[in-house]
């Protein structure tokens, strides 16, 4: 059974926030402006982003609400009665509740009766896990249509109060703690939705799913992005091992961490997986018309791109497209948000028959995921 993405949707909370406004939303820790913000923002080149918290760090939209809003837009644009949706798959790094799964909460909001649900847990690649499961479910002909959502509300982890409460953490002890501050200036909030069906939409463009693959390297590499430990090499406790959650927070075990030293492994493993797909004949670089990458080209050192060119498998920069700079890095939701805008933007010409290669790497413990779509019209 061939499966198509027949509709998409997205949702962004609040107005677009410029580089200079970011710290006024997340808050200056102990009222002192960050010494790392400008440097990190310059490196990631994100110009605007959205937050589901206000300037007093109060939540304006729940993660469930954002996912629901993206789903509503996606369903409103679809040529399909809602009761035909047989499956709801929802991905997020952290739902509003640790339990139950976020799909339950979103299903309730959407009032979709008696459907099959799936919540995937992870970071950026969790959306691809959800997409693959839904795709397979349709391929097995268990459902005619599935709704796949991904939503991220990172700002609740990044607001100043989190850092101020971490009084005995590495962040408090060091003058500069790159590992706890790096993601503060990277991540923001938003949600994306895809509708999968067993036939293309009767009007307009659909995206046929050609293949979805993933390669995880957790067996070899240390944890790179995480929440739940204090980030000290000799301390193996995780947040639930502390006597109280308050102690875990004080110790910085609830701060979002990125070991930036390990980050280049992600690009290397990304290139390795890509070369593997080329070797297997799954991906043919010369046939790729559009490359949608969760990371932008400047995150890859130019030299490895040059090396791929020398090896005859580079993808020319003019085929790369992203909305990272205007929509921000919304983690798991990024690719869905990108696909939604890709089908509507004037920046790029999307034609029937075009092949779209997508790449979503997850730094958590180095999971790299890839998918290929073909633009079709009924």
């Amino acid at each position, binding site marked *: 059974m061939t499966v198509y993405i027949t509709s998409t949707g997205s949702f962004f909370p609040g107005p677009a926030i410029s580089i200079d406004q970011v710290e006024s939303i997340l808050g200056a820790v102990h009222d002192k402006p960050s010494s790392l913000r400008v440097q990190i923002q310059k490196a990631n080149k994100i110009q605007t982003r959205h937050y589901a918290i206000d300037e007093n760090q109060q939540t304006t939209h729940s993660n469930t609400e954002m996912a629901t809003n993206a789903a509503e837009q996606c369903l409103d644009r679809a040529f399909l009665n809602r009761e035909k949706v047989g499956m709801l798959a929802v991905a997020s790094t952290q739902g509003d509740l640790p339990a139950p799964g976020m799909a339950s909460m979103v299903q309730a909001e959407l009032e979709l009766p008696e459907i099959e649900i799936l919540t995937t847990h992870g970071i950026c690649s969790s959306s691809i896990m959800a997409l693959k499961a839904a795709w397979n479910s349709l391929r097995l002909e268990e459902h005619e249509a599935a709704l796949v959502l991904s939503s991220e509300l990172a700002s609740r982890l990044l607001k100043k109060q989190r850092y101020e409460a971490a009084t005995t953490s590495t962040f408090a002890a060091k003058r500069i703690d790159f590992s706890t501050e790096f993601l503060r200036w990277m991540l923001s909030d938003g949600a994306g939705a895809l509708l999968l069906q067993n036939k293309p939409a009767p009007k307009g463009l659909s995206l046929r799913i050609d293949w979805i693959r993933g390669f995880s*390297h957790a*067996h*070899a*590499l*240390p944890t790179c992005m995480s929440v739940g430990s204090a980030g000290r*090499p*000799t301390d193996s406790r995780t947040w639930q091992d502390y006597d109280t959650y308050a102690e875990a927070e004080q110790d910085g075990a609830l701060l979002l961490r990125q070991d*930036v*030293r*390990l*980050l*280049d*492994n992600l*690009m*290397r*493993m990304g*290139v*390795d997986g890509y*070369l*593997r797909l*080329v*070797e297997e004949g799954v991906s043919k670089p010369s046939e790729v018309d559009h490359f949608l990458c969760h990371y932008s080209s400047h995150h890859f*050192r130019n*030299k*490895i791109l*040059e*090396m*791929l060119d*020398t*090896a*005859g*498998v580079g993808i020319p920069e003019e085929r790369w497209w992203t909305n990272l700079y205007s929509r921000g890095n919304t983690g798991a939701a990024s690719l869905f948000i990108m696909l939604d805008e890709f089908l509507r933007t004037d920046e790029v010409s999307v034609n029937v028959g075009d092949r779209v290669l997508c790449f979503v790497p997850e730094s958590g413990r180095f999971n790299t995921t890839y998918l290929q779509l073909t633009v079709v019209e009924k």
Partner: protein
Amino acid sequence: MSDGEISIEGGESSSVQENVPEGVVLNPHAQVCLQQLLRVWLGFERDLSKVPLLRRIDLGTFTVEDHQVFLRNIRQQVIEGSRWIARTASSFDRNHSEIRSTIISHAVDEHRDYQMLEKDYVASGGRLEDILNMERNVGSEALHGFLMHRSSLPNPIDLLGAMWIIEGLGEKMAHSWAERIQELTGLSEESTRFMTYHGHNDSEHMQRFYATLDRVCNNEESITSIVKTAKVVARLYRLQLEEIEYDIQ
């Protein structure tokens, strides 16, 4: 941030000498070979993260003692390195004289590297006689045996795969390890000269490598042999680092 650059990609500032062709366009076989070599390298590099001694660099628990152990264990391979490279050069016949010249100049560049390594050892607080007395560890024996065997065969073009791995590692040491080791151990640059030295002229080395690859890799068989040797060397090099002798002999 300079840490963790993709080590096989080469540095930014080195100048390409006149006799080195710039922007080599590889033939289709050489392109496929480079794709596969990249995968062998990336897998090798990833799996090095599992080697206990090296994992401590990633985890931030690497010590001065670890640095000394590392230097003591790779010195023998560095000494033997110039031997197999020299033998490789002599195994090429007159139809491969250009490659022979390239390899001879490479052997000249590196045949006294081990002395730099010994100085690093002393600068990091080790006793010269301790490093001089070290024998090859189990992995070094296997690596050395394989390389001497292959380099004794006629026209051993497959050893391009060995150079790919060993040169790649040299550049990884220079770009990813040296500075981090200094940071973790408090050792000075004097103790990591052997590592940093290998970061010089990276892009020149790469262009030279591409040119040689383009010349010798013209059919399926040459791809297979180059990639196979790269895989064997990657595995045996990792074995050398897994079979670390911690004690002074």
